[in-house]
């Protein structure tokens, strides 16, 4: 499906990308490993850490199971009901939690599920006197599902939307209903993306820090990420932090390997590119409506609580605050740069492995086809604080570290967004290639021509969605800035935390509102690229 020159180009791009990602993270880790100071940290695997590791995996596995399992009915309902008021907004919801700092989201969840939250108020009205406590495993699971259910549903919906529209027509002609339709048409599409989604959600939950501590109820709920932070900050034992991160990667990689065994790539169906029409939507309107209402209430309520808290801030004064303007400009510039870089890195990660689709390739290609997706996922497990600290140590030999901070933060954000972007682009590209690859090759449309005239236009929608995800993630990120933090380099989350740390909770809520609003804006391009609204097919 690729010309000889394309194969060469893709191998080169894949090699460069792999080299860049591994070097950027590896160099930082190596520098920290060499920065042994006290070395009195004791053995790495003490009983405390074993307990922490066990809890990390346990809560992440439960969170993943819940998020992915609940996403299936939501994605099916969304795929069936293609026209209803607010559908576009429901889809956009998936991006907003990504752009909110974990602390903001945690407080939003508490507004709903906390001791003084709406749920307990309702239970009280119903005659239950003892408040239900969210603090503990329940709180962690609720928060993780809040973050990841919309993401998983959105990715699954994209998979369902890639099913050739002819299949729905045929299925309707054959009189297929519910279970048969699910088993024969929907499930194969979901099964193909489910391992990737589950892997992503698992990694996000395994590295959760603020949510786990704040809603966990006590130190019995501690993740390895907390231990890494503790090792690097309070105990200042950089090598231990790196070893803990390595442990986190090994453990998760082993589990992701298991998950990957479940999935199996399917054959792609050809399509003439007709608009999707679902013939089974009408009978399911009531049950789908109920599912989507619950979904909207579950993900929407904490967001609305967060946003209304923001409305009570003195928004007029905030809007005129020059510091806020600077933070906004810095945040947007960094988010844009990091999302652009992320897409540049993601394209080879997505495209190069396809070289190995039909055997007979050389060892280099087979290596890249395995190493690129693995690296593109597992990078999420390298704590940004480790990369940032490592690069700080390197850059201080090259003059003022503050000058380099924006670039380092942007690159770290790009790497952290890579797994999301790959999850969005990979299945879309696979389908696209199956549908157009042979034709393009036989017509001699190759190289840059093919990329610009065939690939990018057809992938416009997933690209816009990936870009929105990457920008939102970067907007809400605080992690990497802390170590560089200096006068003059202020981002929105940084400003939010600093207001919060000096009693200015209303201001902080106002900034959170701004972040949420920005994330919604980001989704506008990807929504306008919806093929249905333009009445066009997606090929």
């Amino acid at each position, binding site marked *: 499906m690729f010309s000889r020159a394309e194969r060469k180009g893709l191998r080169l791009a894949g090699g460069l990308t792999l080299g860049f990602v591994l070097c950027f993270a590896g160099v930082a880790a190596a520098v920290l490993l060499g*920065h042994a*100071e006290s070395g009195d940290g004791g053995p790495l695997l003490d009983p*405390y850490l074993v*307990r922490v590791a066990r809890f990390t995996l346990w809560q992440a596995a439960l969170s993943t199971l819940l998020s992915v399992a609940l996403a299936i009915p939501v994605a099916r309902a969304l795929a069936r009901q293609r026209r209803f008021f607010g559908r576009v907004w429901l889809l956009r919801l998936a991006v907003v939690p990504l752009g909110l700092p974990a*602390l903001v989201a*945690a*407080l939003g969840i*508490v*507004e709903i599920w*906390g*001791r003084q939250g709406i749920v307990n108020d309702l239970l009280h009205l119903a005659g239950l006197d003892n408040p239900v406590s969210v*603090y503990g495993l329940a709180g962690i699971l609720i928060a993780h599902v809040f973050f990841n259910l919309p993401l998983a549903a959105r990715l699954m919906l994209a998979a369902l939307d890639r099913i050739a529209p002819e299949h729905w027509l045929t299925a309707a002609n054959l009189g297929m209903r519910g279970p048969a339709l699910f088993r024969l048409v929907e499930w194969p599409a979901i099964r193909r993306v489910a391992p990737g989604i589950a892997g992503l959600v698992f990694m996000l939950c395994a590295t959760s*820090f*603020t949510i786990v*501590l*704040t*809603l*966990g*109820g*006590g*130190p*019995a709920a501690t993740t390895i990420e*907390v231990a890494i932070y*503790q090792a690097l*900050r*309070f105990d*200042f034992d950089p090598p231990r932090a790196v070893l803990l991160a390595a442990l986190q990667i090994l453990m998760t990689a082993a589990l992701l390997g298991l998950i990957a065994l479940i999935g199996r790539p399917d054959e792609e169906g050809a399509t003439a590119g007709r608009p999707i029409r679902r013939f089974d939507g009408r009978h399911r309107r009531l049950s789908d409506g109920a599912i989507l209402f619950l979904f909207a209430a579950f993900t929407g309520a904490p967001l609305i609580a967060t946003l209304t808290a923001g409305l009570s801030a003195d928004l007029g004064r905030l809007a005129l605050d020059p*510091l806020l303007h600077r933070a906004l400009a810095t945040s947007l*510039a*960094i988010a*844009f*740069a990091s999302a*652009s*870089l992320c897409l*540049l890195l993601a394209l080879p990660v997505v495209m190069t492995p396809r070289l190995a689709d039909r055997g007979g390739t050389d060892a280099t290609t087979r290596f890249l086809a395995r190493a690129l997706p693995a690296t593109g996922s597992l990078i999420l497990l390298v704590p940004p604080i480790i990369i940032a*600290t490592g690069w*700080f140590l390197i850059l*201080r030999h090259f003059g003022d570290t*503050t*000058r*380099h901070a*924006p*670039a380092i933060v*942007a690159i770290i954000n790009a790497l952290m967004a890579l797994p999301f972007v790959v999850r969005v682009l990979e299945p879309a590209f696979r389908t696209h290639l199956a549908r157009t690859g042979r034709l393009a090759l036989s017509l001699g449309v190759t190289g840059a021509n093919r*990329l*610009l005239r065939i690939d990018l236009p057809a992938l416009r929608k997933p690209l816009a969605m990936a870009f929105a995800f990457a920008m939102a993630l970067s907007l809400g990120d605080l992690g990497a800035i*802390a*170590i560089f*933090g*200096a*006068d*003059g380099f202020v981002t929105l989350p*940084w400003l939010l*935390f600093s207001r*919060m*740390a*000096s*009693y*200015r*909770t209303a201001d902080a809520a106002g900034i959170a509102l701004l972040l949420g609003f920005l994330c919604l804006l980001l989704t506008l391009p990807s929504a306008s690229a919806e093929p249905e609204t333009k009445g066009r097919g997606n090929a």
Partner: protein
Amino acid sequence: MRNIILPTIAIFAALFSPPANAAEKTLTIYTYESFVADWGPGPEVAAAFEKTCACKIEWVGLADGVELVTRLKLEGESTKADIVLGLDTNLIAEAKATGLFAPHRLSPEGLTVPGGFSDDTFLPYDYSHFAVVYDSQTLKDPPKSMKELVEGDPAEKIVIEDPRTSTPGLGLLLWMKAIYGDEAGAAWSRLKDRVLTVTPGWSEAYGLFTRGEAPMVLSYTTSPAYHVIAEGTGRYKAAAFAEGHYIQIEVAGMTRTARDTDLARAFLTFMTGPDFQSIIPETNWMMPAAATHEPLPAAFEALVKPEKTFLMAPEDVAANRKAWIDEWLAAMSAK
């Protein structure tokens, strides 16, 4: 693709643009972020000091005191800091161990820090006691001692901070240790049922508290002053504990590598003087460490003034921290 690459390069180039040129003598001060924020003491302090010295203060604002020490360890002798302002007494031993600080050789008079803190390297600039802050609208009968807090009704919850990741968390750990000694583990086991949750930092805990999730939070005796002065509400109060309160003293010191030691020393002298001290209460929301020009605002006079102050020697804290945190973990993680 090109339409993405070009703006990206442009943005990176813009981000790399060189910083403004420094004029005359500069004094670089590393501190925590909220000190240099618009509403913090930083801008006023800089203006007041620059009037006396024909120099310019350059602030570097880091996340918190712990981050300050980390940053110094990372930078070593190449640090640009002339002054490091914002460590607390628990970080002193670690900071000294870096070997980067120089003795201040000053003997300021009229320091008013309870417990009589004195150190050859670090000078105090403000302090506050840790305290349980409660919501007087929902908690009518606040605990009057640590004993009452530990043994009180488990249905009335408190939010505390994690000693593994935050200074207030460590403060409470030391406070309990100072009161209960070898019985601290047992006391934590009793208190555990009252603890709603343990947050990574002060902001999360205080956020939960002001949202009404718990009627009590571990904070500072000075916290109510902010609510009175800035928000005009006397709703949040600090509970006075009969056993006494653990103190957090914020200190500053000059580095061995300071470019102009006279200037650095001049700043430390200025720091304990009334010009600096008068700025502290209503910008940093802490008690001044020395005399101010005017008497303190009424809201500060009304704060809890502990009769007994606990403070452990920095070396003892450094030597025992890990063991005490392990004791805390064991008590708090038990089912």
